[in-house]
């Protein structure tokens, strides 16, 4: 009985938990405990969904018994179960972490609000992923975005407010573009259900209206996933948000947006329309090549390491778009695999920065001098995450890069291979800056002595760092999921899911 309701529970649990979390505003510790419990249950549900999908194939869930295409439908297939797993998994690690970190960064009376926002954001992100209905996707997108703006604005620096406002303007424009696209599609096809859309869009041929809808949707989603050069909101937002929020958003929000992009490009519009009629790869490839090179170089010159990681995120999103733009199964697998892997590495890196911020109050590179000795575990976890970004073997980043390069070689795109490698070397430089500061520079004179971060921060941090190593050494699980999803997307995209 319960198991057939899992798709609904996935979203409803955190969504309904949020108001209760808010009601406990006098008791931040309880509201945190509730949020953590719900994040774990969401992770549990995602695991059960994964098992169901692997055993029985795609799950379709009709809300309230109203059958699609009239009712609202939730669909879980090979593709989004991977995203569900990563979003809820990161949440299950970041939520426990958030308590200690938030104590240092947010006023007690606002803490419950913060946990409520995080829970809403989780509900929204899971909802976007699982929704089988284009309009529902928009609503849940806005739920997650609004709660993200709130979380960012709680950063201690006043620049967090302007960062949040900037994100609000750009995010809302993006979301509005998405509903314009959805509206036009609805006019053309009379349906909002994704499967229905996928079957009806090919009948439209190359109508100009559907091309316009495609344009609006790609731009709107591009804003949400910080596609270069629509990424301007991202660095400030990640840099000034509270540490726990940065880690959570960086590891999940853009990944979900990438998922939405893949869903629209491959499932709804179909490979034929997207790549043969619209030639979207000729947008994705140059844009991502620019993103990878340009933002990696910008990252080199950042003084605030959180900001540096934010720029690196834009570059890493470039890798995912590049994988999509390769238009082959290997490339798409690489994109999906990197979606999974990047969540792990950026999660670990931002959590490490959260621990640093907990002890020294900021994340500037010059105040991190000599931290390698003072906070050995934190910095070691940072190094693991950093090696993963660079793509050193036995880390997740290596596996993603391996598959991505393989995809590029299959196309014979040698310059693209060169770009990926050059960007890895730049990544090595910006990670190296931190390593050198932390391990080879002495602690500044007169700086107060620092001890290692508390275990409540270290355990979640090391869980993610260890996941980076585990899934880097044994990538069978993630690779099989990504590969089978990619194959399904390529083969059956024309006739539905």
């Amino acid at each position, binding site marked *: 009985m319960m198991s057939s309701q899992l798709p609904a529970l996935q979203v409803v649990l955190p969504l309904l938990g949020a108001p209760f979390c808010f009601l406990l505003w006098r008791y931040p510790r309880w509201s945190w405990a509730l949020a953590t419990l719900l994040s774990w249950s969401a992770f549990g549900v995602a695991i059960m969904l994964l098992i169901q999908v692997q055993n029985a194939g795609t799950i379709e869930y009709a809300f309230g018994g109203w059958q699609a295409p009239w009712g609202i439908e939730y669909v879980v297939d090979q593709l989004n179960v991977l995203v569900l797993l990563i979003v809820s998994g990161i949440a299950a690690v970041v939520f426990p972490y958030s308590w200690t970190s938030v104590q240092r960064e947010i006023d007690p009376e606002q803490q419950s609000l913060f946990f409520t926002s995080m829970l809403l954001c989780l509900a929204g992100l899971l909802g976007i992923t699982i929704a089988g209905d284009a309009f529902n996707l928009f*609503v849940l997108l806005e739920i997650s975005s*609004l709660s993200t703006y709130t979380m960012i604005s709680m950063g201690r620096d006043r620049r967090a407010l302007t960062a949040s406002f900037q994100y609000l303007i750009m995010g*809302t424009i993006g979301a509005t573009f998405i509903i314009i696209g959805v509206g036009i599609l609805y006019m053309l096809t009379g349906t909002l259900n994704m499967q229905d859309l996928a079957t009806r869009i090919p009948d439209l041929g190359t109508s100009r209206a559907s091309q316009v809808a495609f344009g609006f949707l790609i731009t709107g989603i591009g804003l949400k996933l910080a596609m270069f050069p629509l990424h301007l909101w991202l660095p400030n937002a990640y840099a000034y948000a509270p540490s726990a929020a940065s880690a959570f958003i960086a590891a999940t929000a853009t990944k979900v947006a990438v998922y939405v992009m893949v869903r629209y490009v491959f499932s709804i519009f179909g490979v034929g329309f997207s790549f043969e009629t619209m030639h979207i790869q000729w947008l994705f490839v140059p844009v991502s090549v620019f993103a990878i090179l340009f933002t990696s170089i910008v990252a080199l010159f950042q003084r*605030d390491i959180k900001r540096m990681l934010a720029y690196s995120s834009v570059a890493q999103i470039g890798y995912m778009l590049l994988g999509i733009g390769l238009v082959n199964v290997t490339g798409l697998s690489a994109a999906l695999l990197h979606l999974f892997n990047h969540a792990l590495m950026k999660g670990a890196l931002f959590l490490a920065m959260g621990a640093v911020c907990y002890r020294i109050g900021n994340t500037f590179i010059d105040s991190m001098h000599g931290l390698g000795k003072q906070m050995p575990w934190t910095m070691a976890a940072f190094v693991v995450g950093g090696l993963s970004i660079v793509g050193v073997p036995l880390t997740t980043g290596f596996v993603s890069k391996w598959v991505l390069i393989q995809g590029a070689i299959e196309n014979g795109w040698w310059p693209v291979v060169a770009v990926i490698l050059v960007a890895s070397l730049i990544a090595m430089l910006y990670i190296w800056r931190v390593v050198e500061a932390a391990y080879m520079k002495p602690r500044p004179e007169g700086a107060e002595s620092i001890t290692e971060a508390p275990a409540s921060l270290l355990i979640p941090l090391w869980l993610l760092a260890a996941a980076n190593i585990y899934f880097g050494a044994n990538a069978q699980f993630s690779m099989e999921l990504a590969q089978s999803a990619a194959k399904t997307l390529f083969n059956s995209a024309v006739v539905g899911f």
Partner: protein
Amino acid sequence: MDSIFTDILAGALGRYNYWVVIVLMMAGFYVVIASTNLVKKIVGLNIFQTSVFIMYISIGKISGGTAPIVWANAELYSNPLPHVLILTAIVVGVATTALGLSLIMRIKHAYGSVEEDEILALSQAEDEDE
């Protein structure tokens, strides 16, 4: 000649709802981009969103259709779904506006200004101080 002209005219004016939508959308978009006052930006954003609401509402209308209430004499109903959808979108829009305005209040409190260029100058000064 004449008939082509009228065809174009009819094509353009017959879908006047889209012209309304496009004009509103561009006006709103312009305000968001060009205005330096944060409150005006939110107003622009509202106009921008409203244009989309109108688009949805107008596409639900079917010529000769009546309100979608079951009625013996009705032959054709308007499509109620876009209206229902847009109700949700309006709620989202209200929430965004509320959040945007409250952010502006906090910004005013923190920077003493709601003009983007002044805030930017203050932020940059802070960046350089660090």
